[in-house]
């Protein structure tokens, strides 16, 4: 079964590359670089060019913004999730803010935080903080009341109820929020770098695109895809973790 699935996945990948190769023959090279050009270039970039500082920057921005968004999102989520008055007051505001296309804040962030790392981290933070906070609120407030009641009847304190009942009961929902947040962090950092920055993968992509270096553009895009796949695997690990504990 596993092998079959893998074979089918390889088939579709092969099909896409073939489609890419054949369509690149039909248009000028400046518009679409062919796989036969891109893959050798990928190896060259990996071995010879100075891509590493850019990768580190992007990676650092992702980790920092994700860490901050998770910490703040969980904290606010737990507070609003357990405190009904605050939840009724502030959850609608959070949801409304979440509905705003976050990219509108970016010019402001650039203005205040400058072109370097800080504005990217702040932007990715805004993108991923809301889903983490909102799903945590949802998870914590939707814990079955009878589970809490039973724990109180067995003499549990409020704190014990929180970490022995509320937390494990809402963990699957919370982890799904965190994995959404992680994916949005990657998006935020790359988009932020593309829209204006000094270092990072997004900066490389944007400059390759403006300079019509189509081959490099594809190389960097492939690297972004690989990062996204990696992040997706980590998210899946999170969600699998939740039911084992």
């Amino acid at each position: 079964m596993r092998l079959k699935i893998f074979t089918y996945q390889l088939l579709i990948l092969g099909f896409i590359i073939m489609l890419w190769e054949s369509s690149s023959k039909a248009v000028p090279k400046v518009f679409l670089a062919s796989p036969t050009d891109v893959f050798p270039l990928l190896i060259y970039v990996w071995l010879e060019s100075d891509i590493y500082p850019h990768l580190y920057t992007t990676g650092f921005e992702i980790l920092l913004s994700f860490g901050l968004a998770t910490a703040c999102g969980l904290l606010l989520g737990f507070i609003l999730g357990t405190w009904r008055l605050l939840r009724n007051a502030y959850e609608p505001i959070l949801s409304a803010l979440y509905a705003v296309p976050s990219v509108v804040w970016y010019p402001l962030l650039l203005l205040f935080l400058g072109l370097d790392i800080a504005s990217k981290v702040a932007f990715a933070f805004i993108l991923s903080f809301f889903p983490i906070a909102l799903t945590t609120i949802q998870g914590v407030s939707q814990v079955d009341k009878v589970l809490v009641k039973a724990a109180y009847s067995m003499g549990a304190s409020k704190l014990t109820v929180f970490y022995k009942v509320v937390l494990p009961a809402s963990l699957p929902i919370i982890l799904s929020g965190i994995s959404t947040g992680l994916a949005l962090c990657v998006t935020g950092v790359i988009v932020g770098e593309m829209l204006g920055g000094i270092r990072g993968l997004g900066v490389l992509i944007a400059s390759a695109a403006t300079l019509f270096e189509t081959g490099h553009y594809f190389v960097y895009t492939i690297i972004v895809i690989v990062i996204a796949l990696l992040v997706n695997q980590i998210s899946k690990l999170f969600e699998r973790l939740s039911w084992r504990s």
Partner: protein
Amino acid sequence: MTTHLIEVRNLTKIYGSGSKSVVALQNVNFGVRKDEFFTIIGPSGCGKSTLLNLIAGLDKPSLGEILIDGKKVEGPNPELMAVVFQEYALYNWRTVLSNVEFGLEIRGVGKAERREKALKYIRLVGLSGFEDKYPSQLSGGMKQRAALARALSLETKVLLMDEPFGALDEQTRLLLGIELTRIWEETKKTIVFVTHSLSEAAYLSDRILVMSARPGMVKKIVEVNIPRPRDPNSDEVNRVKAMVWDEIKDESKRMMEVAL
């Protein structure tokens, strides 16, 4: 007076305030004797679960008081009473064994003793062999057995049961009723049992408190003087059932009229 382990005095519970307030219980008075199987029955919405929550200390009365062993109930007291809920209230992420250990864990009982006690009560409720299963792998009846073992493991004098078999099918319900009688006789406890099933009440109880429709009041307390072991289909049990039904049917009707 002193023969009563549980004493409910002038108990009134009002939910909400102003014009929207609902009187759930009004001036309820009764006592439960030591080692008695005491059942509370009434039409749905009569406040019988509210009454049990108040006894358990999970809710506060508006007026009146409840005394257990001479002490006023001010909150949950896991040294004195354990509660079984209709919804089982098992923790999905814990195995049966770990669920049964939960109450002891909160009490601060050491690991070895906790395990020993949990296994003992798992055996008593007939769940041996399922210690490492998760609640989602159990049937409704087995879940309620696990919840019962968890409550028993606290080794309290009083066991409060809020429609424990309400979500189960009739056969499982009957079977668990029979086992509960056996466990009750083995462990010598005072049981307060809330139900809406006439058969359950008549078959299990020493005494049955019949409640009136909202506001919940004590309508009558029926003594069930049938020797044990009882046959759930015997004439005596059926006679008690008919008697309780006579008391309850007008109340049920009234409740339905209110709803309409």
